C-alpha cells in the first residue's frame, strides 16, 4: 500500500486521452449513466452538462407503454437502496415522440435499454429501434429482478440467454450490449454465451435481488415484495463479476454497481472494464458522473497514463 512513491515519481502533465470505442460506438470518455437512474436525460439536463457524458443509457423500454409496479417502489437500506420500479416506460413510440427530440439536440450517444416478456417481444422492440433516429446502441436487459415475466428469467438460464441474444442480434444492426444477471454462480459462462451469440459488449451488474420487511406491519416494504439492491453495498460483488466476465471474453465490458466516486470506477477498469456506468449515485449527487470523469483524468495524470485504455485490465495479480 505504497501510494507515496507513485504519487511523486511520475510526470504530472501528460495529456490524457479519455476516449473509448465500445462496440463500435465512439465515446468522449468511458463514463456512462446507468439505465433507470437517469430517466431519459432531460430530467438531469438542468442539473449538469449532459453532453460531457460518455453515453446516456435511458430507462428500460419495451414495445408498448408499461405501468410498472404499484408504490412503494424504493426503500433506502445500508449502503444503497432497493427498488422495484418495474420498468415503467412509454414504449418505443412514446419514447421516440416524447424524449428523442430532446436527446437528438444533444451531443451525447444514446443507448436504449430494452426488455420484453417473450423472445418475440425482445426481437420486436429491437427491430422497432431500427427506425428511431438518434439511437446509438441497444442494451439488452435480461436481468431485471422487478418484472414477473421476462427480465431475470432470461438472464439466469444459459439456453434462454443464448436464444434471446441470438434473436435480438438478428433484429438489430445497432451495437448490442447485453446486460448480464449477477446472481448466477458462473458469470463467465453467460458472458461467453452472449459473446458467441453476437453481442458487441457486455454490461454488468444489474441490481441484486433483495427484500425489505417492515417489522412493525410485518409487510414487505415494496409492493412488488422483491426488489433490486443497488449502490455502494453491491460494489465489491460487481467488481468480482466484472473481473470474471472480462477475463472470459474479448468484447468490451461495461462495469457498474455502486460507483460513488472516481476510485470505484477505476477499480472496475483495472478489473477489466472498458467503460463504466454511474447509477444510484446520480440520485444522491447529480454531478457524480462528472466527478468520476474528472477523477479518472486526474488519476491517469498522476500515474502517467496517456490513454484510458491503459487502465483497462491493468490488474496485477
Amino acid at each position, binding site marked *: 500500500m505504497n501510494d507515496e512513491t507513485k504519487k511523486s515519481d511520475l510526470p504530472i502533465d501528460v495529456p490524457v486521452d479519455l476516449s473509448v470505442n465500445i462496440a463500435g460506438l465512439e465515446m468522449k470518455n468511458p463514463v456512462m449513466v446507468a439505465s*433507470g*437512474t*437517469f*430517466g431519459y436525460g432531460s*430530467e*438531469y439536463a*438542468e*442539473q*449538469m452538462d449532459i453532453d460531457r457524458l460518455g453515453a446516456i443509457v435511458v*430507462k428500460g423500454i419495451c414495445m408498448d407503454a408499461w*405501468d*410498472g409496479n*404499484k*408504490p*412503494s*417502489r*424504493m*426503500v*433506502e437500506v*445500508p*449502503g*444503497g*437502496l432497493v*427498488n422495484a*420500479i418495474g420498468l*415503467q416506460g412509454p414504449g418505443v413510440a412514446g419514447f421516440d415522440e416524447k424524449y428523442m427530440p430532446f436527446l437528438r439536440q444533444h451531443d451525447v450517444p444514446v443507448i436504449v435499454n430494452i426488455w420484453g416478456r417473450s423472445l418475440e417481444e425482445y426481437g420486436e422492440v429491437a427491430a422497432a429501434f431500427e427506425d428511431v433516429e438518434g439511437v446509438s446502441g441497444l442494451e439488452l436487459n435480461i436481468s431485471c429482478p422487478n418484472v414477473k415475466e421476462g427480465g431475470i428469467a432470461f438472464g439466469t438460464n444459459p439456453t434462454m440467454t443464448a436464444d434471446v441474444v441470438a434473436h435480438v442480434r438478428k433484429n438489430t444492426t445497432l451495437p448490442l450490449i447485453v446486460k448480464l444477471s449477477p446472481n448466477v454462480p458462473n458469470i463467465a459462462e453467460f458472458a461467453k454465451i452472449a459473446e458467441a451469440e453476437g453481442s458487441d459488449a457486455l454490461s454488468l451488474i444489474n441490481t441484486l435481488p433483495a427484500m425489505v420487511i417492515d417489522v412493525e406491519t410485518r409487510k414487505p416494504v415494496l409492493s412488488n415484495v422483491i426488489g433490486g439492491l443497488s*449502490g*455502494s*453495498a453491491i460494489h465489491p460483488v460487481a467488481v468480482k463479476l466484472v473481473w470474471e466476465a472480462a477475463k472470459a471474453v474479448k468484447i468490451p465490458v461495461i462495469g457498474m454497481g*455502486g460507483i*460513488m*466516486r472516481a476510485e470505484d470506477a477505476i477499480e472496475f477498469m483495472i478489473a477489466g472494464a472498458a467503460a463504466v456506468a454511474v447509477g*444510484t449515485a*446520480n*440520485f*444522491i*449527487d*447529480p*454531478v457524480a458522473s462528472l466527478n468520476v470523469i474528472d477523477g479518472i483524468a486526474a488519476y491517469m495524470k498522476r500515474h502517467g497514463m496517456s490513454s484510458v485504455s491503459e487502465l483497462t485490465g491493468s490488474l496485477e495479480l
Partner: protein
Amino acid sequence: MKTEKTKIVEHSHLVGDYRLLVLDAPEISAQAVPGQFVHVRIPQLEESALRRPFSLYKAENSTISILYKVVGRGTAALATAAEGSELDVMGPFGNGFPIPGSEVTPLLVAGGYGVAPLYLMATRCLKKGVLFVGGATAEDILCIDEFEKLGWDVRVATMDGTLGSQGLVTDVLDEWLTENSARNDYSPAGHEIFACGPDGMLKALGDRAIAGEFKGWLSLDKHMGCGVGACLACVQKLQNVGGDEYWGRVCKDGPVFESREIVWESSE
C-alpha cells in the same frame, strides 16, 4: 445548475419534534414558488444515503427556511447539523400552488408540518383567506401567530382538543363551507383549497372539492429518490381529463395536483 452549497444561518428547535432551518441560498430563494421543495443531502449520513425532500417554508433576503419534524434517521441526523456549516441543497423542485386571482378566497388546509408550504403561500396570495390547521395535539399546531400577523383568519382543530376545537381539521372546514354556502351570493368559484398534510386528510379535502365543485390543490408527500423525475420512485396514480390512468411523479409532475387528477387507491 440547481445544486447549491448553502450555509446554515440558523438552526433552532421550535416545539416538540419540530425544528427550523434557515439557509443562505440566494439562487433558490430567488426562484421559490410556494409548494415547491428542496432536496437536501444530509451531511451526517453515509455517502450512499438518499437526499430528503422538504417544502419551502420561507424564501426571503437570499435565504430559504425549512420547518421540519424529526421522524427518522435522516431528520434525526439533520437535527445535529451545526449553524455555520454547509448544506448541499438541490431545488427549488416541482410545481407549486397556482396563485389564485384576487377574486378567490384561498382556504389553506394544513396537517402538521404541512403549514410550511402554506405559509409561503399565504405571503404570496393576493387576497387574505382562512387557514385551517389540524394536528394530534397542541404541539403539532405550528406558526399560527405568523398567519395571524399576515391578517389571516386561523381555525384550529386538534384530536385531543388541547388547542382549537376537538376533532379533525375537515370538521372545522365543513363548518366554514356550510356557513358560506348558505350565503346569498355563494359561488363555488369564490374559494379554492390549498392543502398539505397526510394522505387521509388530502383525500377528504379532494372529495369535498369535487362534491362542492370548487378547486382543491393538494400537495402530496411521497418518499423520493432522485427528486428530479428520473427514478420513478415517487409515483401517484393520476388520471388525465380523458379518464386515462397513469403513474405521475410527485417530484416533477407535482407535488401539487388538483383533486380531480388524483386517483386514490384503497391499498395505500
